[in-house]
């Protein structure tokens, strides 16, 4: 366990020093700021959540994931991680945990920022149940996006860099935006978060899409995560 903690500590140091992380945070805050305002708190917070769900969540989280894994290849430092008293599986898990941690911090930050802006602008009808509701919704969307990030990690490892996985993240985003409104939307992993959000406003249950949709997200995560660990453990690292 201690070796996992050491690995998490090191991965965190590397990521927290990265301009990619801070640039992404600033960008998300900027976008949140632009889209703020609305008739009431539901609209104000809802706009931000929807933007996050449809575009920037995948882009931001995906870019971070691509960088955390891809930079080891781009900077040629991966060989320093391959024969250590910390297993390669633990290194991959540590990277995953650090990505999750910072993505959650990013989520909290944009929510807090949005709240602050709403108070400053003077949006009407503040009620803590609305805020709690919206916060829960945003966290769920963030979780969905994190599930979608594991294939990004796998692609970064296989392509030995961060360009291919970032291209993948943007491509899946475009596919989601295009195919989301169609019948295919509920089964396309990358359009599921936005679809879930748009339906959860009117639906009675917390999970308005069919179980197949959420199952697909979990399946995709499993494939990406298992694939990444397997690649790090077994593939020839030339």
């Amino acid at each position, binding site marked *: 366990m*201690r*070796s996992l903690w*050491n*690995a998490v*500590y*090191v991965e965190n*140091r*590397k990521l927290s*020093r990265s301009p990619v992380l801070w640039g992404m945070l600033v960008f998300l805050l900027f976008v949140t700021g632009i889209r703020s305002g609305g008739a009431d708190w539901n609209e104000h917070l809802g706009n931000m959540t929807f933007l996050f769900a449809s575009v920037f969540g995948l882009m931001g989280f995906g870019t971070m994931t691509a960088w955390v894994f891809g930079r080891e290849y781009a*900077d*040629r*430092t991966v*060989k*320093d*991680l*391959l*024969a*250590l*008293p*910390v*297993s390669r599986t633990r290194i991959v898990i540590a990277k995953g945990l650090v990505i999750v941690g910072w993505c959650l911090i990013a989520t909290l930050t944009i929510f807090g920022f949005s709240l602050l802006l709403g108070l400053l602008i003077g949006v009407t009808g503040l009620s803590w149940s609305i805020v709690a509701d919206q916060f829960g919704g945003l966290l769920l969307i963030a979780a969905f996006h994190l599930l979608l990030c594991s294939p990004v990690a796998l692609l970064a490892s296989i392509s030995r860099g961060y360009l291919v996985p970032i291209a993948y993240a943007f491509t899946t985003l475009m596919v989601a935006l295009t195919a989301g409104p169609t019948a295919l939307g509920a089964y396309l992993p990358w359009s599921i978060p936005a679809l879930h959000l748009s339906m959860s406003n009117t639906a009675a249950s917390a999970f308005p899409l069919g179980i197949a949709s959420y199952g697909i997200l979990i399946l995709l995560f499993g494939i990406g995560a298992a694939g990444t660990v397997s690649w790090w453990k*077994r593939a*020839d*690292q*030339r």
Partner: protein
Amino acid sequence: MQEIIRTESLTKRYGDYSVLQDISLNVYRGEIYGFLGLNGAGKTTTIRMLLGMIAPTSGEAHINGQRVLGAKPDLWQQVGYMVETPYAYPNFTVRENLRLIAKLRGLPEKQSTEAVMDRLQLARYADTKAKNLSLGNAQKLGLAKAMIHNPSVLILDEPTNALDPAGIVHIRELLRHLAKEEGVTVFISSHILEEMSKLASRIGIIHGGTLLQEISSQQFEQLRRKRLTVKVREKGELASELLRQAGYATQIADEGRIEITDESAIRQPERIAKLLVGADLPLAELTVNEEGLESYFLQRVSQ
């Protein structure tokens, strides 16, 4: 003597292309084993296989009695390595890069970092970002990362090729000290013959993916020595016998050349000439040269 590194018929093929064939070698505790070969001979592939970074097509590698592939992570606590060009996190300083490795290896960060920087004369550059280091200092940083945990096995790929002469001597002395005084087993690959001959206690020559030959330090000391080579037009055995009777230790080399390594012959080659001419054995050739490791090596790899 305790066997620390062992490979059994290590072979690697990529499709039809064979990179390594049947590499079997042993390295014993406290030895400095030099793996010598031209670029592309398979040195780095062998090293990557010793570190579990590449899986062999067939054969096995063992360190400290454990199979490398699928070894428990504990094995790597004993092994320090540097593979090809050493890279570090570019925006972290030397000190910070070392602290990251120290943390990953579960060492006391500050202590072990300062100690290894002193050992490798990197303290001056402790606060320099890795991206701003000269090639030589980047290589020293790579060595520092390999040694920070005081491993009992060091696997180093071309460890001195970017260092200046002072750096080369420093590392050579350091590795010799580690091997002799601390029983560290060192496996080095290089294409720099001169350095290898000064450092290694045994050299394995690899060429085209095959281990051609292993020679000990005594054997290549002989190769480095000056020698006098003489060739007579005919009656070579007679010439050889004559020289032997005169007290010279002769050896027949290729193409009927007679080789003498005696000091006296090298200092006064005219005596040899006089002897042979006086006995009516006309000379075709007389040279004094230092064949050395280089020509020996080039000869072996061209066969």
